[in-house]
């Protein structure tokens, strides 16, 4: 019992998630800066930002729904933290697992986005409203290809549990190669999910200031920012667990491999962010539905056929 | 200088009242004397419709003592600039807006309204430019009699000293 609590709250649960989230944010900013020929921030910058925001005054707009305004950042953070419990980090099993946890993780991931939409909607500012509408529009664009891409490998593994999928692919490593198109789709729509450039129009600084976060300040903003960082870890871990299940049976070594995989995925995310201009929201929808969804559909069909062949 | 002289000759031929009031200042520069409203409008329309002065670069407002002067700078494809001057008394500074033939003049004519107190008739509705909201009425900063040292920025009032009372003068 105690061990389980430690696992969920400290390692590899929430505390690790928060610290690793900040580390990935630092790494992301550093890579972004070095590509742009800048120095970039020192290693403690994300933590310093977080602590500074904790000490700042909280201003709540008079027109907003105060209860919702305060509660949403916490809900958002809680959703990410609970989703993280189902992802194997230390060793090849996660802290908690059951048949169907993949679906739960996907829905918990959606809660963060919904929280952002509600946060923008309840703060009642013009920029925040436009930002929240864009968040929702973007969600409808990336969600289908992202879910299809993440569910495709599960069809071969014949299990809806992330831990179970890891175990399956460990046994049949050659099947990993089949899922490469889905990995490609997942990486791009994952960038959309994280609302990072080129898919950052929901919080485009030069158009709508910072979209849904525009009215947020102090502790509430700090928690939102932390949940965004944690989301980054979550998406990177999920992609690495599903598409790159490279495992030894030694827990520490697995943990090191996990760190390397997620950092590798982060580097791809950072590169994508630095080499492209921001897409307009209508262009985002077009890309997701015209290019990503068909690729993901084809992947699903292929995987269904393979599954059929396997059962023969 | 050939092209410039031709323009001057053609103008004088068309409008006899312009004789002796238009001159070529130097290459690519033609200046006219001050014209009254009716004369001015005939000439500017003719220049726009018949002589290829497609572009109005800007309007300069000037203070001519008892009168206000308006210099419309027009140019054609060859880059010849023609300065067409209009005059209106300060007591009745009414002129007609030329935005109907040169839409580019809108902002410049608004400046005349704010800074010189000209009444530009036919100017499209829009925000005032460039003076701030709450600027006191009847203050036209670019008229010569308006002195910036008498303007109080905090109360937004203009307090000229009375004759004999030198208080507040620099």
């Amino acid at each position, binding site marked *: 019992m105690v061990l389980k609590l430690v696992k969920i709250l400290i390692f590899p649960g929430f505390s690790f998630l928060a610290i690793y989230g900040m580390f990935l944010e630092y790494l992301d900013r550093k890579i972004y800066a070095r590509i742009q020929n800048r120095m970039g921030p020192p290693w403690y910058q994300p933590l310093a930002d977080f602590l500074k925001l904790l000490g700042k005054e909280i201003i709540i707009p008079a027109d907003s729904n105060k209860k919702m305004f305060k509660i949403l950042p916490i809900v958002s953070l809680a959703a990410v933290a609970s989703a993280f419990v189902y992802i194997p980090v230390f060793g090849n099993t996660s802290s908690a697992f059951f048949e169907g946890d993949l679906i739960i993780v996907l829905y918990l991931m959606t809660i963060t986005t919904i929280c952002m939409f509600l946060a923008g909607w309840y703060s009642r500012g013009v920029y925040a409203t436009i930002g929240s509408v864009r968040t929702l529009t973007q969600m409808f664009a990336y969600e289908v290809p992202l879910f299809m891409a993440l569910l495709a490998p599960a069809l071969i593994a014949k299990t809806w549990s992330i831990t179970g999928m890891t175990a399956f692919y460990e046994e049949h490593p050659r099947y990993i190669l089949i899922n490469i198109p889905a990995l490609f789709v997942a990486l791009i729509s994952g960038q959309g999910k994280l609302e990072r450039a080129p898919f950052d129009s929901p919080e485009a600084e030069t158009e709508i*200031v910072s979209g849904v976060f525009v009215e947020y300040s102090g502790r509430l903003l700090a928690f939102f920012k932390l949940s965004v960082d944690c989301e980054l870890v979550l998406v990177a871990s999920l992609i690495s667990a599903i598409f790159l299940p490279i495992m030894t049976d030694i827990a520490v070594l697995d943990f090191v491999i996990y760190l390397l995989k997620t950092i590798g995925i982060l580097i791809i995310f950072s590169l994508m962010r*630095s080499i492209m201009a*921001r*897409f*307009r929201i209508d*262009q985002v929808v077009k890309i997701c539905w015209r290019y990503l969804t068909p690729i993901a559909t084809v992947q699903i069909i292929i995987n269904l056929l393979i599954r059929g062949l396997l059962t023969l | 200088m050939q092209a410039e002289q031709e323009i001057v000759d053609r103008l004088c031929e068309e409008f006899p009242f312009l004789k002796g009031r238009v001159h070529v200042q130097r290459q690519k520069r033609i200046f006219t004397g001050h014209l009254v409203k009716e004369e001015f409008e005939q000439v500017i329309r003719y220049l726009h419709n018949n002589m290829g002065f497609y572009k109005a670069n*800007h309007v300069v407002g000037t203070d001519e003592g008892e009168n206000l002067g308006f*210099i419309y700078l027009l140019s054609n494809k060859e*880059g010849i600039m023609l300065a067409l001057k209009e005059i209106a008394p300060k007591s009745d500074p009414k002129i007609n807006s030329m935005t109907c033939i040169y839409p580019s003049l809108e902002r410049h004519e608004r400046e005349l309204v704010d800074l010189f107190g000209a009444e530009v008739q036919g100017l499209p509705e829009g925000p005032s430019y460039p003076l701030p909201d709450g600027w006191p009425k009847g203050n036209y900063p670019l008229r010569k009699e308006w002195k*910036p040292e008498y303007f109080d920025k905090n109360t937004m009032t203009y307090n000229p000293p009375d004759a004999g009372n030198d208080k507040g003068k620099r």
Partner: protein
Amino acid sequence: MEKVDENKERAENKENEENKESKQNRETSERNRIVIPIGPQHPSLKEPSSFIITLEGEKVVDAVIGVGYVHRGIEKACESRTYIQNLYLIERVCGICSHTHSTAFCQGIEELAGITIPRRAAYIRVIVAELERLHSHLLWLGVAAHEIGFDTLFMYSWRDREKVLDVLAEICGNRVNYGINTIGGVRRDIDSEMMQDTLKMADYLEGQLKYYLDLVMTDKVLSARLVGIGKLSREDALKFGVVGPVARAAGIMDDIRIIEPYAAYDEIPVNPVTDTHADVFGRTVVRIKEMLESLEIIRYSVKNIPDGDIAVKAPRRIPAGEVISRTEAPRGENIHYIRSNGTDMPDRVRIRAPSQANWQGMRHMLQGQYLADIPITIAAIDPCYSCTDRAIVVNSESGTEIMDWQGLRQYSIEWYKKRGIDVSLVKMPERKFYA
């Protein structure tokens, strides 16, 4: 007879129905409209101005543009200052294109006084003007890239802009507000070392600019954000009287350096740069090509600069008269009207900066755009609000002090110490000139 009536009736009914329908449509669309303010403070605006944008979904229905927040009364201030004092005042009309304003002003006064400046001075004016164009356009490229969320290009172009600023600092002693013009010529001569540095900078920049041009021409994401945005056709461009790169992108060649050569442009070959896209993409291409052209002009002038004096003496009192002086600023045609009355102060100075002309077409360009394209459309005319509004002078009561780099840093450390922050522990890198 009956049939005709019937038809008529039916037509009328149909018309009524249509009216009802269109009215309903209009009502629902009006209900869906939201008005959002952009400015006076907004991250996409580098200077204050306000845009009241009416949106229908993400589409712009109408835009009301308010400028005038930086009206400083420069024209009035000019009337109570001598010509030499005015020179420095006019240089401060705009921080980016200060040289073009002081050149136009000096040219006008030289024409009134009947002075011909030495050829060497004319060449130096050209070199500084072209360097200014380079740094202005590079600045623009960075801002434009930032507006469409492409921060890498923004950082790259501003890094390259530093090289130009270093050369400007070496030639003029200042990074901005160069203070090189004077009535009758220029104040500082240019030596062979400066020329070498300029040429070195030009070689470096040429490679970079060609890369940017290639990037803009081939990058799919950039063209998705730039092509077809902020359209202003040739006819509309003529109607609204836009100038500079905005007009040139619509195929109108209005380069004053060619139409009415001033300074040494009559001897230096200048190739016109135009484009037919008539949108933001065209404006970007025109500006990058113009920078490449500027490099050629700089190379030519450095190689062909004649020896001789750099200034002639100018009288203090300028003979009565009026003059219109035109120069080609980085943003387009810059016109100064100066009237003198025989004293040492001008009677009237009117500055028509290029941005002022370009604002007119803005509303037209914004209508029908997506909200996301507003920042780039506004940025694409390279608006300079200070130039537009020009015209209050701040009087410092304590007088002025001259500080060097170290002194300035010491002052800032003291300033923060008084407020309880010690920044003296932060190490600053030594400032290096381009070498």
